[in-house]
């Protein structure tokens, strides 16, 4: 028991790189660092450069420095404000949905019932479905206002079918994304449930704690740490939602379902305004870093315990 604590400090030299007791770690660590540096800094520097240039592929006559005009144009553009709001709504909405349903499903599938193991496989399946497939299947087979299954069901009970992607585009995309990520949250939280102290629950039950009280005071605190992990991983991926928008609404109608990622894509690659698109990219990077600092700190604290 005590041996594991003893030599740890002796081996772990506090110095970076070469140390008397350790080895030269630089050749081991540097390939990764160098690769990431090159991959991050070169394109980022280029994006930064482009963002201050007049650079439109459709109009090569206008060139030269643009000063801050790409940024002022972007920041005062209504599409930009809309895209920021959409990004926040999408990330926030999906996060809340997945955590709530993930927790409920984790508790449900932790109970003993017939065919528990197999039913779990079905619940986690959507996580393995690629975003383009998920979006296409929902858009056509389920949500199509004429021939989709939902439309048939609505007509069956005498309702007018909903035109999902024109009346509630952002919500519809959120629904598809949540469908992909609820299984992820369930998978992680279900695994965490298995390390829950059963005797504690039993004792609480004996003492007359109602199921809701047991859930609130024992299960939720136990899941707090895995939930932060879920939030971090999901945020990284949700900030970059692209394929689901591309194949369903293409950001429309208008800008109703355009998030920041899609706005940059539209500006740079569909309107060929590389300068404007790059300015959007830089703004996206800055915003993501604000979120990142906050998240990484939280998770780092959790990993230390």
């Amino acid at each position, binding site marked *: 028991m005590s041996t594991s604590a003893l030599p740890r400090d002796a081996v772990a030299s506090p110095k970076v790189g070469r140390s008397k007791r350790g080895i030269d770690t630089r050749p081991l660590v540097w*390939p990764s660092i160098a690769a990431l540096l090159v991959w991050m800094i070169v394109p980022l520097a280029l994006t930064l450069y482009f963002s201050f240039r007049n650079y439109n592929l459709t109009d090569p006559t206008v060139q030269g420095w643009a000063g801050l005009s790409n940024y002022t144009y972007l920041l005062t553009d209504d599409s930009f404000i809309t895209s920021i709001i959409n990004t926040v709504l999408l990330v926030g909405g999906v996060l809340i949905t997945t955590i709530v349903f993930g927790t409920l499903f984790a508790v449900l599938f932790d109970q003993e019932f017939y065919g528990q193991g197999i039913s779990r496989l079905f619940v986690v399946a959507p996580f393995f479905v690629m975003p383009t497939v998920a979006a296409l299947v929902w858009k*056509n087979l389920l949500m199509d206002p004429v021939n989709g299954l939902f439309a048939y069901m609505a007509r069956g009970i005498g309702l007018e079918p909903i035109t999902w992607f024109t009346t509630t585009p952002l919500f519809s995309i959120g629904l598809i994304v949540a469908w992909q990520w609820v299984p992820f949250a369930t998978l992680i939280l279900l695994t965490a449930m298995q390390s829950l102290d059963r005797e504690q629950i039993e004792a609480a039950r004996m003492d007359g704690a109602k199921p809701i009280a047991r859930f609130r005071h024992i299960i939720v605190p136990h899941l707090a740490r895995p939930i932060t992990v879920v939030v971090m991983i999901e945020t990284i991926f949700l900030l970059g939602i692209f394929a689901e928008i591309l194949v369903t609404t293409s950001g429309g109608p208008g800008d109703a379902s355009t998030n920041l990622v899609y706005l*940059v894509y539209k500006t740079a690659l569909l309107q060929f305004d590389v300068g404007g698109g790059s300015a959007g990219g830089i703004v*996206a990077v800055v915003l993501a870093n604000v979120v990142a600092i906050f998240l990484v700190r939280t998770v780092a604290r959790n*990993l230390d315990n």
Partner: protein
Amino acid sequence: MKTKQRDKIIMTFLGWGVAFLVFFPILWMAITSFKSEIDAITPSLFFHPTLESYTTVNERVNYFGAVINSVVESVGATMVCLAFAVPAAYAMAFYPGRKTKDLLMWMMSTKMMPAVGVLVPIYVIFQQLGLLDTWTGIIAMFTMMNLPIVVWMLYSFFREVPKEILEASRMDGATPMQQMRLLLLPLSLPGVMSTALLSIILCWNEAFWSINLTSVKAAPLTQLIVSFSSPEGLFWSKLSAASLLAIAPILVFGWLTQRQLVRGLTFGAVK
């Protein structure tokens, strides 16, 4: 005892009900893929099952080519990524310095950078280097994309290996290379496996870079499916067949490995 039995039956209905609802879109897609195009636009469950759509999909697009591209690109990128990440994680886990924590944070923060912010320059660089629509280009891209996550995960798995074992072998003259190959990798094999699995799944389902940087030659399944979105999106049976073919390999793979996956996904945080 009786109430317990009753509870179990209620739970069975509830559990299977939820499982059915969540799985339903995939099930519906599978059913539709065996319909003819005319049956596909009605929700009827009574139809003559046919493999018509599967044969047309194989005639129209190069499915097996796309599968090979997906496999080569995701497995290739995962191998390259591990080659970079194992030494780095080994050094950080067993010879940590004052800056190790910061270094890990920095690596993770590169992952937070939205891909779209660097899309234009990467596209231009790829074009200049002739990497567009090539295996090399996509493997390089996927490697960089997953490197931070892979380093993090390996780091947290390596830390669970007792230092004394490696230290003893070092005293006996084992080089870092030998330590990694003969001790560390065998000892933390489950962790390394789950890291590799996650990396393969992330590559397989990656849609942003693969759509923007490939067209035909190196196009993986994600790109193939986009080509079905319009105007062929109207042909639901073919769309379903292509979709099912695209997700089937990774779905089976994910199911077989889900236990190891969870460990990887949570950086070893969920025991």
